[in-house]
C-alpha cells in the first residue's frame, strides 16, 4: 500500500477521517458502511471481534445488518450461502478450524456462483491447538474457488473489504471473495487508519446490488439452484468458474485503480519494495512483509540490493507479475507461515517456481522456508537471517538447502519433561465411603455419601496451578462431581476455558489421562476412545480394572457447536458421561452469547443500548434436549448444593458403567464476564437455583425428580434477586426493561411448572 499524500487534496479524493483502530475494527467499519444485509457468524479467535464490533455498532444504531449467531461455522456458512442465494449482500468472518469446519461449503458457494465477502483472520490450524497467527488456514482456501485478497495493514483491511464486494459482484466474476489478514498482528494491532467520513461514498463505490442473475427472490421467476451434474456438464461448469477467477485478476486491477482515485491509496497486484534493481529478495505474505521492509533499508545501507515481493491478491495467482518482478533477481527466498507437508516446500513456493518455469531466461535461485508458525514472532533479526540465506545462495550460485524450516530449536536434553508426582490412579481415588445401590422396588439408585469433610482426603482430579481467572466456577463444580466418582477416570475436555487453563504446553493440570478434541466432536471422540478401550480389553490385549469412568467435559459453547455429536453419542448409548459446565456464554473467546445465555443478558455479541437490549431469545434447555434422547440418567447440579452434586456424580458413574450414556449440566459462575464480584460466585448460582431459573433435578430412567425444591424449603426468590448480583443483567432491573424481565420470568415459570408436573407424574 502506498499513500499518495500529494494527491489527497486533488479532485476525486473523497473526504476521509482518521481513527486509531485494529484490522478487526476496520473490517467491521467497512461492513457497517456498506450495510450488508446479513452476517451469519460463529465466534473463533482472532476473528471474533468483527462480529462483536458490528454488534456494538448495531446497538448504537449505526447499521442494520442482520447478525445471525450460528450454531457453528458450518451453520454460519449455511446461513451465508442461503442468504447469498437471494442476491442479498452477505459477510462472514472466521479463522483456523472455524474455516476448516465450514470448508465443505466454500466450493458450494463458489461453484454455484454466489458472491459474498469473508474475512479470514488467519490463524494456525489445530492440532495441537494454537490460537495465534499463521497461514495454515489460508492455504486450505487456495483450492476453494474463492478470490483471495491479502491485507497487510489495518488500512488495507478496510480498503480491501470495500474493493472485495465490488469484485465479487462484478458481472465477469460473480464469485465469493476472501480478505485474508494476519491474526493478532493485523487483526489486533492498532494503527492510524483513514476511512471515508460519509458511508454514502462507500455505498456509491460498491454500487447497487446487481440483480441480473438468478436468485431465490421472485416467486414469479422460480429457479432450481444446485441441480446435480455428471462429468460432461460438471467440467463445463468448472471451466466457467476457472474463467471467472482469472477475470477477477483483471477486475481487481480495475477496481483498485478506481479505488485509488477515490481514496488516494494504491493496491497494485504485487507490492514491490525496492525490487527495481534487487539482487536478493524475500517473497512474504502480509504482516511479515511489512516487518522485513525495515531490514531491506538496513541492507541497502550496506550496499546489498535487497527487496521484498508481497502480493495483494493470491487467487488468481499473479504469475505474470511475479515473473517480471524476478527477471533479474539472483536469489529469492519464499518465506511461508504454513507447510504443505511432504511437498518439498509449501504451496506458494511451488506457485512461484511454476511462474518462473515459463520464463526460459530466468536464473533465479529459489529457496523455501517455513517460518513463524503458530504466531511465532517475526523480528527484524529473523528477516535478516532469511536474507542471509538468500545472499549465501546468490554468492554460491546454488541453494545448499532448497527447503527447510526456520526458527525451530532442538531443545536441551537436560530440560526434558519428567514426571513430577507419582501417578495417581485406582485406589488413590477410592474412598470406599460412597455407596450406590439399585433399589429394586423403585428402580432408582440409592446413594449414601459421608459428610463432605471426609471426602477432603480424596485427591482432586485436577491439580493446582491452572490458569483460570480468580473465582472461576468451573473447577469447584467439576471437582465436586468427581468426588462422587470412585476410581479412575479418563476425561476428554472439549475446547473451552477448562481445557485452555489446564493444558498450556508444556504444563498440564491433569492428574489422570486427558485428551482434547475440538468442540464439535468431543462426544464422538470419547465414544471412540471408550469403545476401543473395551475392544482391546475384550481381546485380552490390555488388562485394566473394570471401573474406569469416561467423562467428556464441555462448556455450553461446546454443547452448541457439538450438539449433533452429543446427541449422536447419546443415541448410540455409549457408556460415558457428558458433563457440561454452563457459564451462559462463550467465555473462552471473550463472552459472546451462547444459546444458553438467558433472555436479555448482555454479552459481547448481545449488547445493551438503544436498539437492542441484550440477548434476543430464551436460553436453551439442554438438559431437556438430552433427556429426550432417552438416555438412562440426566441431571443438573451446582457447587452451591454440594451434597446433591456429589450424589449425582455417584449415580452418573453407576449408570455410565452399567447402563449407558449420562448427561449432566452444572451452572457455574464466570465473574469476569458476568461482571460480578469474584467472591459471590457460589451465592449467585445458589440464587439462580432458588429463583427456579436453574432447578436441580434428575431424569432417572425417564422419570423426573426435583432433588431440591426451593418452594418446599421456603427459599424461592424472585429472578431479580439473582440478576442483581451481575453487571451483565443490571439493566434488566430498570423500569424501561420491565417487559423483558417479565417475559423472562414467564418463561422461567413455565419451565418450572412443567418440570414440577414431570416430577409429580412419572409418565411425563
Amino acid at each position, binding site marked *: 500500500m502506498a499513500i499518495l499524500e500529494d494527491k489527497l487534496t486533488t479532485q476525486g479524493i473523497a473526504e476521509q477521517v482518521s481513527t*486509531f483502530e*485494529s484490522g478487526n475494527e476496520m473490517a467491521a467499519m467497512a461492513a457497517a458502511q456498506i450495510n450488508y444485509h446479513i452476517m451469519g457468524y460463529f465466534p473463533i479467535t*482472532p476473528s471474533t471481534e468483527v462480529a462483536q464490533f458490528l454488534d456494538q455498532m448495531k446497538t448504537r444504531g449505526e447499521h442494520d445488518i442482520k447478525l445471525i449467531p450460528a450454531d457453528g461455522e458450518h451453520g454460519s456458512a449455511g446461513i451465508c450461502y442461503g442468504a447469498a442465494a437471494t442476491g442479498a449482500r452477505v459477510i462472514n468472518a472466521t479463522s483456523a478450524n472455524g474455516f476448516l469446519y465450514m470448508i465443505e461449503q466454500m466450493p458450494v458457494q463458489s461453484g454455484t456462483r454466489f458472491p459474498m465477502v469473508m474475512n479470514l483472520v488467519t490463524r494456525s490450524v489445530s492440532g*495441537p491447538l494454537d*490460537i*495465534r497467527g499463521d497461514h495454515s488456514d489460508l492455504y486450505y482456501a487456495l483450492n476453494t474457488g474463492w478470490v483471495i485478497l491479502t491485507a497487510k495493514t489495518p488500512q488495507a483491511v478496510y480498503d480491501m473489504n470495500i474493493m472485495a464486494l465490488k469484485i465479487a459482484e462484478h458481472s465477469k466474476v460473480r464469485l465469493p471473495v476472501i480478505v485474508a489478514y494476519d491474526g*493478532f498482528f493485523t487483526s489486533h*494491532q*492498532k*494503527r492510524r487508519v483513514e476511512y471515508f467520513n460519509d458511508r454514502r461514498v462507500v455505498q456509491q463505490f460498491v454500487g447497487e446490488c446487481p440483480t441480473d442473475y438468478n436468485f431465490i427472490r421472485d416467486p414469479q421467476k422460480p429457479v432450481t439452484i444446485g441441480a446435480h451434474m455428471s462429468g460432461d456438464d460438471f467440467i463445463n461448469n468448472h471451466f466457467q468458474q476457472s474463467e471467472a477467477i482469472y477475470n477477477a485478476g483483471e477486475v481487481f486491477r480495475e477496481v483498485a485503480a478506481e479505488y485509488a482515485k477515490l481514496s488516494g491509496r494504491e493496491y497494485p497486484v504485487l507490492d514491490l519494495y525496492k525490487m527495481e534493481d534487487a539482487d536478493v529478495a524475500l517473497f512474504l505474505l502480509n504482516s511479515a512483509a*511489512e*516487518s522485513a*521492509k*525495515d531490514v531491506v533499508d538496513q541492507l541497502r545501507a550496506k550496499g546489498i540490493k535487497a527487496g521484498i515481493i508481497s502480493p495483494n491478491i493470491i487467487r488468481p495467482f499473479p504469475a505474470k507479475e511475479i515473473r517480471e518482478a524476478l527477471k533479474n533477481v539472483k536469489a529469492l527466498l519464499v518465506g511461508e507461515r504454513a507447510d504443505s507437508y511432504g511437498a518439498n516446500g509449501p504451496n506458494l513456493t511451488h506457485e512461484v517456481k511454476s511462474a518462473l518455469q515459463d520464463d526460459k531466461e530466468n536464473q533465479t535461485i529459489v529457496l523455501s522456508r517455513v517460518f513463524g508458525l503458530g*504466531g511465532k*514472532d517475526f523480528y527484524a533479526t529473523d528477516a535478516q537471517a532469511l536474507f542471509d540465506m538468500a545472499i549465501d545462495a546468490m554468492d554460491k550460485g546454488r541453494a545448499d538447502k532448497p527447503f527447510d524450516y526456520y526458527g*525451530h*530449536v*532442538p*531443545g*536441551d536434553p537436560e530440560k526434558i*519433561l*519428567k*514426571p*513430577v*508426582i*507419582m501417578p495417581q490412579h485406582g485406589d488413590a481415588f477410592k474412598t470406599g465411603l460412597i455407596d450406590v445401590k439399585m433399589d429394586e422396588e423403585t428402580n432408582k439408585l440409592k446413594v449414601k455419601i459421608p459428610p*463432605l*469433610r471426609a471426602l*477432603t482426603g480424596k485427591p*482432586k482430579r485436577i491439580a*493446582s496451578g*491452572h*490458569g*483460570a*481467572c*480468580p*473465582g*472461576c466456577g*468451573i*473447577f*469447584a463444580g467439576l471437582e*465436586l462431581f468427581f468426588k462422587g466418582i470412585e476410581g479412575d477416570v479418563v476425561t476428554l475436555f472439549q475446547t473451552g476455558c477448562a481445557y485452555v487453563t*489446564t493444558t*498450556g504446553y*508444556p504444563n*498440564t*493440570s491433569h*492428574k489422570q489421562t486427558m485428551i482434547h478434541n475440538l468442540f464439535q466432536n468431543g462426544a464422538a471422540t470419547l465414544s471412540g476412545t471408550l469403545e476401543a478401550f473395551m475392544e482391546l480389553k475384550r481381546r485380552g490385549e490390555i488388562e485394566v480394572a473394570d471401573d474406569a469412568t469416561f467423562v467428556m467435559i464441555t462448556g455450553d459453547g461446546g454443547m452448541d457447536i457439538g450438539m449433533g455429536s452429543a446427541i449422536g453419542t447419546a443415541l448410540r448409548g455409549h457408556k460415558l458421561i457428558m458433563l457440561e459446565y454452563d457459564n451462559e456464554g462463550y467465555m*473462552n473467546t471473550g463472552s459472546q452469547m451462547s444459546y444458553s445465555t438467558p433472555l436479555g443478558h448482555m454479552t459481547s455479541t448481545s449488547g445493551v443500548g438503544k436498539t437492542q437490549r441484550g440477548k434476543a431469545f430464551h436460553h436453551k434447555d439442554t438438559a431437556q434436549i438430552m433427556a429426550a434422547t432417552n438416555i438412562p440418567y440426566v441431571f443438573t447440579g451446582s*457447587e452451591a448444593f*454440594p451434597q446433591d452434586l456429589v450424589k449425582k456424580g455417584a449415580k452418573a458413574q453407576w449408570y455410565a458403567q452399567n447402563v449407558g450414556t449420562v448427561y449432566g449440566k452444572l451452572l457455574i459462575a464466570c*465473574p*469476569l464476564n458476568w461482571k460480578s464480584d*469474584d*467472591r*459471590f*460466585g*457460589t*451465592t449467585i448460582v445458589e440464587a439462580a437455583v432458588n429463583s427456579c431459573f436453574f432447578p436441580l433435578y434428575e431424569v432417572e430412567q425417564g422419570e423426573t425428580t426435583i432433588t431440591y425444591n426451593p418452594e418446599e424449603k421456603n427459599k424461592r426468590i424472585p429472578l431479580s434477586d439473582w440478576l442483581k448480583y451481575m453487571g451483565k443483567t443490571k439493566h434488566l432491573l430498570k423500569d424501561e426493561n420491565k417487559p423483558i424481565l417479565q417475559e423472562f420470568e414467564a418463561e422461567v415459570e413455565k419451565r418450572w411448572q412443567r418440570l414440577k408436573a414431570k416430577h409429580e407424574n412419572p409418565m411425563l
Partner: protein
Amino acid sequence: MSILPKKNELGFFEIRLESIGGLGANLAGKMLAEAGVFSLGLKGSNFSSYGSEKKGSPVKSFVRFCDPDVEIRDHSPIEQPHIVGVFHEALYKTVNVVSGLNADGIVLVNTARDFDDVRHDLQLEYGALAIVDALTIAVEEKTKVNTAMLGALYRICDFLDPESMRDVIRKTFTKKYPHLVEPNIRTFDRGYNEVQFKTYDVPEGAEGKKFTRALPQLGYMTQEIGGVIVAQANSIFKDLGGSRQGFLPEFQQEKCIHCAACDNVCPDFCFVWEEGEDKRGRKQMFLQGIDYQYCKGCLKCVEACPTDALGNLRELIGYADEHRVKQNFPYLSGGSY
C-alpha cells in the same frame, strides 16, 4: 523538529506496560497511543501480548510512537523500551519486568513502598525510577488503577499534553456515567502530580538492561511427538500469587469447624487437609491451612465459611510466604524442571 525525546534506530519511542489481566493496562496503552496520534499528529501503534491469558495472568501492552514521516512496519513485541510501566508489583516474582530497558530509560512502578526497596527488587543498578501509589489513589477515588498510572505516564512522557487526556476522560464517561467524570479526572491528576522520581546515576557508557528471547523449554529433539505431555500435574510448580490484587483469605485454625465448605468452592485447590483424630479418637480430616502459592485471592472461601475462621486480609508483602501451608502432593524425587 521531532518532539520525541528519544528514538531507537527505526525511529521509535517505545513504551512497555507490564500488568496482569484485569487492571486495565491494555486500555491505558490504547489511550496513551491514541493521544499521541490524535493530539500530537505522531504515528503510533499499540498492541498487547496475546494468548489465552485469563484475568490475573501476566500481560504486556506495547506502545510505539514515531514522527509522522516514519512508516510503522515493525509488528514485533517491544524488547528495548524507553519506558516501562509496572502496574502490579507482584509481577517481579515471575516476570523480568525491566528486561531490555534502555540505560537512560525510566521505570514507573505502582507501589506504596520506598524507592530503594523497589530498586532492590527490580535489580536496577542505575537509571530513573518513578513511583506512584496508584492503588491507594484508585481506592480513595473509587476509580481504577489504570487511570492513575496514565496520569503518571503522562508526567513521564512530557511531550504529551495532559489536557488532551482529560478530554478523552470526559468524552468516555460523560454520556453514560457522568458521575464518574470528576473522580477519574482527579485520579488522573493525582497520578500526574503524585508520581515521584529518583535517578540513580547512570555511569559513562552504561548499557541498558539485557534482554533475552526466551527459548522454549523443549525443542524438536525433546518434545514427545504429537505434543503429548507425560508429566501429569506439573502445573503444581506454578506460582499464582501474582494474580492476587491486594487481598487474600486469612485462616484462623482455632475458629475452624473443618466443615469443608471452603474446600468445596475453592477454584484453585488451596486448602490443605490432614487426617487426625477427633476428641473421641475417631479418624477425621482436619484443615491445616492455605497454600497461598495457588491462591488468586477470589475470597469465595471467605463467603462460604460458616464461622469466622476465614476472613479478608489486605495482603502485605511477605505474608503469604510466611503463612503458606504447603500442599502435600506425592512428589517424585528429581522430578522438577
